[in-house]
């Protein structure tokens, strides 16, 4: 029996049947559903799904954008799957996610919990943590390059004080990806924080108070009340961060341009180069569909898995 169920006034589980305004089925109900959905569905179909179909069509061709398309069937896919550059780009992307996601989630969660408590100048502090989120990557990337400057950056200077000789950071193939991960997590902390804060604020205070009366420790309250009730927000953050993480691009472009020696070339960098710099829009589209398939798979696994840990009100 979980602590949550043991609590004196735990929120009632959602009843199996709900009172509904109109009975399900019937034209009227279908009309209501359509009315709610069409305003977003129509533009999504027109301005995202149709271009997606277009990119699939492109992926079956060799195309430099300026001459006629040439049909190559699955040629682009075959070529990409056998290409070491593609494999490297996927590996680099996964490396990025593996470093970025835990950092940004745990950091953002910690911040959200801390800044959900009453403290002086709380609103200001939240605003400050949100500042990097709204600052452009141009500024953020330039600043991190400077902080992590191997020769004269503050980070290596500080490491030097404690007798550690700092690495070459983004100029060293081994350290370039960690540098990008660090900068990205730092920039996106505020994003995770603000989503989780909104989630935290939706948790009725009675639950916490009831648990307190019951003598549950702070950790148990966090583990068994806050976390489960925050799980819809967590689910959102994880799904979105993964979708965005797989498409990491801007920061790589500005910080390392895929270097040094290709060590940070990620999938979308590759896609951008292929489309607009190398005149290979067909191969780029094929690569996008490979990426799409991977992200879709990961997301479906998460949606299937959410039943085990995501609690809805």
């Amino acid at each position, binding site marked *: 029996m979980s602590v949550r169920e043991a609590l004196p006034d735990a929120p009632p589980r959602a009843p199996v049947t709900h009172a509904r305004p109109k009975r399900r089925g019937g034209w009227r109900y279908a009309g209501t559903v359509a009315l709610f959905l069409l305003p977003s569905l129509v533009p999504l179909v027109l301005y995202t799904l149709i271009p997606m179909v277009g990119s699939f069509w492109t992926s079956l061709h060799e195309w*430099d954008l*300026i001459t006629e398309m040439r049909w190559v069937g699955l040629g682009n896919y075959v070529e990409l799957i056998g290409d070491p550059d593609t494999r490297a780009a996927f590996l680099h992307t996964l490396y990025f996610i593996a470093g970025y996601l835990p950092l940004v989630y745990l950091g953002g969660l910690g911040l959200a919990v801390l800044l959900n408590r009453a403290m002086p100048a709380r609103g200001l502090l939240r605003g400050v943590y949100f500042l990097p989120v709204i600052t452009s990557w141009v500024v953020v990337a330039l600043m991190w390059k400077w902080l992590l*400057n191997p*020769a004269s950056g503050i980070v290596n200077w500080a490491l030097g004080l404690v007798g550690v000789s700092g690495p070459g950071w983004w*100029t060293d193939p081994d350290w370039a990806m960690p540098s990008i991960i660090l900068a990205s997590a730092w920039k996106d902390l505020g994003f995770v924080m603000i989503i989780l804060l909104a989630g935290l604020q939706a948790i009725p205070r009675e639950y916490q108070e009831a648990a307190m009366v019951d003598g549950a420790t702070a950790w148990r309250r966090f583990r068994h009340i806050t976390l489960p009730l925050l799980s819809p927000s967590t689910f959102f953050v994880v799904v979105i961060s993964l979708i965005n993480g797989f498409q990491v691009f801007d920061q790589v472009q500005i*910080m390392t341009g895929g270097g040094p*020696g290709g060590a940070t070339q990620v999938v979308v960098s590759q896609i951008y180069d292929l489309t607009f710099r190398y005149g290979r829009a067909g191969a780029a589209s094929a690569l996008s569909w490979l990426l799409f398939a991977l992200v879709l798979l990961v997301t479906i696994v998460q949606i299937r898995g959410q039943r085990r840990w995501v609690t809805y009100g």
Partner: protein
Amino acid sequence: MSRHIKIAGAVAAAALLATACSQGSATRGTTAEAGGKVTLRYFTFSAAPDHVKDLDTIEKAFEKENPNVDVVVETAPFDQYFTKLQTSIAGGTAPDTFELNYENFVTYASAGSLLDLGTVAGDGDTSVYAQESLNAFKQDGKQYGLPASFSTVVLFYNKDLFDKAGVPVPTADWTWEDEQAAAEKLTDRKKGVYGDFQPVQFFEFYKTLKQTGGEFLSADGKKSAFNSPQGVKAANWLVSKVGKTMPTEAEIGGTADYDTNLFKSGKLAMWHNGIWQFAGLKDVPFEWDVVVEPGDSAKASAVFHNAVAASSTTKHGKEAWAWARFLSASNTAATTRIQSSWELPPISDQQILSGYLKDPKPANRQAVFDSLKSIALPPVIKRQQEMQDAVTKELSEAAAGRKSVEDALKAAATEVDALLG
């Protein structure tokens, strides 16, 4: 109740807005002929941000001479210019006329995107152009573009640093050895002063290769030829500076315009860079000048050319020709460019060009024209960008000491051969 109204209002406003702005200027994209006037679109990367007004001057003068033509200028930053150009060609909305740099010219000419200007020139005279520049934009005997401007790369030097160290300033006769000897004497790492700065990348490599008598591509253009003793020598010359007379990648630390600022702050003795830097150096508090770049067995200076081309789909070939010619070779255009230091006009009229020499700084402006006596045009292939990226990447590996120069060149040659094959 009021909330209900508010939201309903928002929905209605949104719907209205969507219809209102779709009307906006839907007729814009096309080359409409209103009242017998031809609208001619021109797409450019070289005007913004500093020379929009100068382009405007040229445009006004052209429209005065050609009252039936209305030139509409569209600009994009160089980095994204080709993204936009390619997309508009793909979408069938190519601008009537557009700018191309020499490196990208072949790609577009080979793709059939450009109009053979010979077919619309009528009795248009091309003798006003410097002939090498004109020929650079010919393919298979057809003139697909008119050279509009060029810039050369020269050796900038800080005269004060040379004088203080008692080192004689560079002359046109200098070779690599002279440059290296001076650079070593002038480098004072403790004070953060460097003797030399020459980026390790494709454009410097093909040029130094030519300076030492090597070739980048085989004579038939079907194979790479730079993995040769000359290639190794040229690459070594570039790579050997890094960390000795020139800061390393780590020291530069990715700082934007590091070299420009280093030179401007008086901490760089010699600097390989383009004449586009002249304007920015007007007010530096030390004496500086330029000289033709030192060579090894030969002299070779890099030239960057931009041209005006017309789309093969334009309906206004004659007007496109007139505009391209006016923009590249008219007196108005040439003098506007010279007066505003907006690169140089590729014309043969020495009278107009001599205006360029009147500007007092740098004193040796003549070096700019001298550098044209032996120019090195970049090797150009259809898959240009991939070639440039591959060569730069391998050379940086060598510069960072992660690969030997020989291995780097070998790898680069393999990649370039694959791109050619």
